């Protein structure tokens, strides 16, 4: 967090400044996610996916013809590509693309002040704690409700530095040249079936540009909320940090629990130009009927650094492998991931590091926790071609099993060619034993508290790297999961 003086100049008056500073804001209250309000949507693409769905979305957004073309081409790719069930879980076959609603909104223009946000949407975000968050420690906030951002605001101080923080719809319209230059370049439409789907129907997500040398002191935050049943959320995020720029972006996601499944399929592209630094933090707590199939990748140019911090809690199935293409010399890439799979959940997560220049370094630390019937899978790709020298990778995968039914698999694929590069891989599987739980219970902790403490201990070294607000929130989410897993 920045100094106290920055803090007070950036914040509008709050009632209790002293307390706010002593006890930094806790994260968005994602534990309170299981509720929904009835909302009258002014724009609804209906159920099912066809060219008409796409034309509807594009026309509602008043998009330029090239974007519609881009979308239609993506739809063709999506339809032509098979489900990747030859390596991924067959559960993917249970997604019925014709039963999903692809676009729902009350309007395409986000409100700039909190008062303008429609009441029913405001209620949702207030219940989750968004406005307090913004006042307390964020440089900017975007809150997406189903398909579109309902609220988007950036603090004046940050905007004056030339930082752009808008939703993708607005980014495409107002900053076309910049957007187009990088859009779809890090993750091409046909990268995988779900990136193709996103490219066809994307809506919302953030567009961020940080100019040369600008270091954004406070994090920018986006919050993604699914409110409607049978809904698919397809946000598209593009972050560009120009030479020497630095930015931290945090996202939180929740959805209420419906009896039918919901799809979240985002595409996130990061570009860190020479010497830039991007840190991207995700804490998601999806309800356990959500298919969460997300493609995230960044390109790090010379001396640039991209760090993904990814916490996956909840969802029915998460498939997510944040990656960094280390394109320039001395670029650094890092993925820190925590996945918790409870009963009925499958966390299929990992990381990709593609070394494409000399003296590039990458670090992957993945920790998974499987509880009850929960299943965790780690998939990693580290690629260092033969012609490079001075490249280094470190990969660590640790799994924690709580009770004997849990399952964990590790599929590390490390390709290091040539003898001028080095890699190091460590994996461990540990168990929370009955004796360990008894030991903690004997000190007065309930079984749920004991399990929660064991899990928090397991991820402690990673959680320490998170901003305070997010590590507090993560701990709360874990407590809640453990409470639910004890009979």
């Amino acid at each position, binding site marked *: 967090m920045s100094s106290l003086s920055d803090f007070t100049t950036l914040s509008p008056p709050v009632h209790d400044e002293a307390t706010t500073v002593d006890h930094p804001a806790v994260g968005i209250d994602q534990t309170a996610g299981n509720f929904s309000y009835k909302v009258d949507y002014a724009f609804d693409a209906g159920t099912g996916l066809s060219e008409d769905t796409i034309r509807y979305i594009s026309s509602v957004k008043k998009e330029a013809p090239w974007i519609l073309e881009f979308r239609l081409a993506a739809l063709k790719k999506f339809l032509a590509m098979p489900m990747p069930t030859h390596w991924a879980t067959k559960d993917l076959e249970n997604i019925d693309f014709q039963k999903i609603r692809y676009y729902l909104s009350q309007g395409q223009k986000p409100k700039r002040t909190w008062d303008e946000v429609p009441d029913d949407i405001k209620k949702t975000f207030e219940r989750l704690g968004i406005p307090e968050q913004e006042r307390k420690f964020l440089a900017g906030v975007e809150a997406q409700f189903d398909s579109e951002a309902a609220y988007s605001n950036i603090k004046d101080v940050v905007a004056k530095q030339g930082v752009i923080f808008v939703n993708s719809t607005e980014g495409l319209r107002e900053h076309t040249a910049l957007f187009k230059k990088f859009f779809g370049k890090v993750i091409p439409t046909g990268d995988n079936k779900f990136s193709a789907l996103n490219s066809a129907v994307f809506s919302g997500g953030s567009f961020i540009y940080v100019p040369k040398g600008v270091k954004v002191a406070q994090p920018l935050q986006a919050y993604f909320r699914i409110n409607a049943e049978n809904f698919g959320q397809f946000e598209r995020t593009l972050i560009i940090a120009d030479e020497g720029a630095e930015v931290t972006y945090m996202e939180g996601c929740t959805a209420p629990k419906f009896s039918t499944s919901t799809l979240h399929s985002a595409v996130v592209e990061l570009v860190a130009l020479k010497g830039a630094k991007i840190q991207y933090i995700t804490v998601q707590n999806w309800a356990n009927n959500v298919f969460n199939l997300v493609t995230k990748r960044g390109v790090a140019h010379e001396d640039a650094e991209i760090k993904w911090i990814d916490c996956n809690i909840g969802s029915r199935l998460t498939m997510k492998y944040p990656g960094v293409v280390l394109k320039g010399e001395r670029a650094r890439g890092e993925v820190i991931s925590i996945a918790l799979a409870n009963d009925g959940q499958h966390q299929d997560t990992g990381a990709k590091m593609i070394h494409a220049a000399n003296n590039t370094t990458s670090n992957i630390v993945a920790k998974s926790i499987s509880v009850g019937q929960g299943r965790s899978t780690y998939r990693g790709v580290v690629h260092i071609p033969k012609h490079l020298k001075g490249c280094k990778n470190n990969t660590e995968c640790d799994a924690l099993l709580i009770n004997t039914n849990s399952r964990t698999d590790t599929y590390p694929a490390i390709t290091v060619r040539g003898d001028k590069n080095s890699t190091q891989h460590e994996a461990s599987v540990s168990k929370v034993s009955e004796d360990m739980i008894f030991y903690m*219970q004997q000190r007065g902790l309930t079984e749920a508290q004991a399990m929660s403490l064991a899990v928090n201990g397991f991820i402690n070294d990673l959680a320490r790297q998170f901003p305070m607000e997010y590590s507090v929130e993560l701990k709360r989410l874990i407590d809640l999961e453990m409470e639910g897993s004890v009979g």
Partner: protein
Amino acid sequence: MSQLEIKDLHVSIGEKPIVKGLTLTIHSGEVHAIMGPNGTGKSTLSKAIAGHPDYTITSGDVLLDGASILGQEADERARAGIFLAFQYPSEIPGVSIANFLRAAQQARMAEGEELDASAYYKRLYSKMDLLKIDRKFTSRSVNDGFSGGEKKRCEILQMAMLEPKFALMDETDSGLDIDALRIVADGVNTMRGPNLGVLLITHYQRLLDHIVPDHVHVMYDGRIVKSGDKSLALELEAKGYDWIKKELAASAA
């Protein structure tokens, strides 16, 4: 003034009876030692009282201040004032001793009540000073990579912080060198007083040179077969457990 009553207790592991009718009452302020050969049910007794799920109480009762604790989970018993110092304490990687004890203290508070962190640390440090424990100790993960002596020190510190009514000390002296033994003994002697009852489970007399018990019981084949004062421990040391076996055989004949 509290009392822990063990009444005709029978404990099995699986189908196998281990404790076969043990009766003993401990009052606050008293230190009882249970001695006996290996495999006689001493550790089973302590774990059963603490509520380990692997140990089935087939008959008898355990009462704390007149109320049975057998229907309570292990954590409820702990919060009621039963502390078990483990023979082999578990490791909890990533959880510092300070945070572990803090969680244990928090678990003893009413819902919605928040532990006063600065008061907690003040108390923790004063207990550590009392037990001559280095300040750096509590930032280490609970028992993770600890030597035998450090594990025992950690148990003693937890006991001092949690201030139980009754402490069951399961072979606390096993595998300890003389210095570590002194740490344990000094700790228990420091805490000894009118508010604490202690059940010391030990195979050897040597711990009792440092912690002088008020009562000594000899356990054999799941029962207490002989009780006396501290001189019984010395007699046992001199004559060996065979003496007890012979006496039992003689009385059975």
